[in-house]
């Protein structure tokens, strides 16, 4: 999804605020939330893909307002309600004003993900691209979960590393399909991504599943 979480290259967020001697947790409730996530992950009630997508589906204003562990809590609760492990009404009744959850997944989330995979011939065994190949990121716009950031779509980069096949998040977040594909480290020059006046030496490296990539003509 072109969600609020897809922040790379966005403007308007101001300076990076650094806290000196920051503790691991600032509030006791943050400890509990992190521990709950760990427990749920440990019991394999959900995959990281489904969890990340639940966080991404938060109301955008809530996403920006909430600190990290509140996003974590909201995503976790949403997922457990959706998987039938928690009753929403029971949860709402415990908190004055109700327990805010993320929006449901887009109705086309699964079909959009399937369309992405259908378009390319990926194979777990034989990577389609080699180190040094110039590739283009497909300008895909799936409405479900994806790990193809908006700021590299349509852009050309060079493969610098081939990683082992990993589960494609787009399908795994919405289905039980463990579709694995080679994943690539791809180097994008700053001038390619941003403008001719960007620092010419600089580059951004993004890790991308094979389905996100196409050969350049």
């Amino acid at each position: 999804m072109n969600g609020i979480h897809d922040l790379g290259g966005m403007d308007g967020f101001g300076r990076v605020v650094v806290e000196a001697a920051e503790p691991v947790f600032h509030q006791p409730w943050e400890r509990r939330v992190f521990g709950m996530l760990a427990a749920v992950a440990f019991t394999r009630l959900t995959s990281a893909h489904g969890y990340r997508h639940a966080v991404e589906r938060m109301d955008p204003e809530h996403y920006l307002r909430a600190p990290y562990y509140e996003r974590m809590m909201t995503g976790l609760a949403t997922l457990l309600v959706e998987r039938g492990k928690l009753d929403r009404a029971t949860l709402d009744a415990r908190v004055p004003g109700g327990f805010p959850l993320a929006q449901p997944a887009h109705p086309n989330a699964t079909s959009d993900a399937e369309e992405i995979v259908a378009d390319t011939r990926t194979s777990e065994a034989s990577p389609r691209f080699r180190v040094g190949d110039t590739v283009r990121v497909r300008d895909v716009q799936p409405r479900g979960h994806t790990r193809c950031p908006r700021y590299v779509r349509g852009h050309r980069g060079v493969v610098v590393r081939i990683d082992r096949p990993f589960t494609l998040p787009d399908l795994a977040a919405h289905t039980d399909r463990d579709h694995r594909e080679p994943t690539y480290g791809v180097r994008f020059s700053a001038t390619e991504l941003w403008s001719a006046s960007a620092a010419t030496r600089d580059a951004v490296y993004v890790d991308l599943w094979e389905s996100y990539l196409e050969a350049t003509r």
Partner: protein
Amino acid sequence: MSDDPHDRDAHTHDHGGGHHPAPLSPVEMRARALEELLTAAGIVDPTFIDGVVNAYERDIGPMNGARVVARAWVDPAYRGRLLTDATKAIAELGFGGPEGEHMVVVENTPDVHNVVVCTLCSCYPWPVLGLPPNWYKSPAYRARVVREPRAVLAEMGLVLAESVEVRVWDSSAEIRYLVLPERPPGTETLAEEELAALVTRDAMIGTAHVAARHGPISPPPSGSTSPPRQQTP
């Protein structure tokens, strides 16, 4: 029990006793409701939570990554293994686990500076760096460091020469990155343990250089309710 942050925090409201805590904030109420319901459903065991939290407050943090870095500085063969198969080389020192299963180490040189981000969420190599600081998770850092890394680094106190190539690594898939910083000059006589004490979290993310002076290791001091930390692991 005195070491258990759970039992000494605001969650003791309902446990009776002589406390007079402040009323719960909305987010605290939500966290408590969720934990109680998940505990009742048998999905979460509060002692499991305690154990995990304690681990990330005490044992899993940038002091681990610092040991990796120091070893690489003193042992060229280890450095070679680290740059070739980081996951395995890091496991040699006993570090691994969630968010560290697929590691890549990128090396700073006089000509190349590396910096790590996760623009889509906040992926971070937990086994070697612990849990990420707030700035790493902030929209400002995630949005800007891929677009204008030099400006962001300068604001954070790291001014890079024009001649240096900046490489920004966006942890968008399953690899987690650790920056191998440059060993500072003037540290030739230091032992591996002393070197590790110089290495900061920010240097391993790529937003700082390592200084030769012996300063306090960067976070975590682990919150108001935890005992003071040793400066070196």
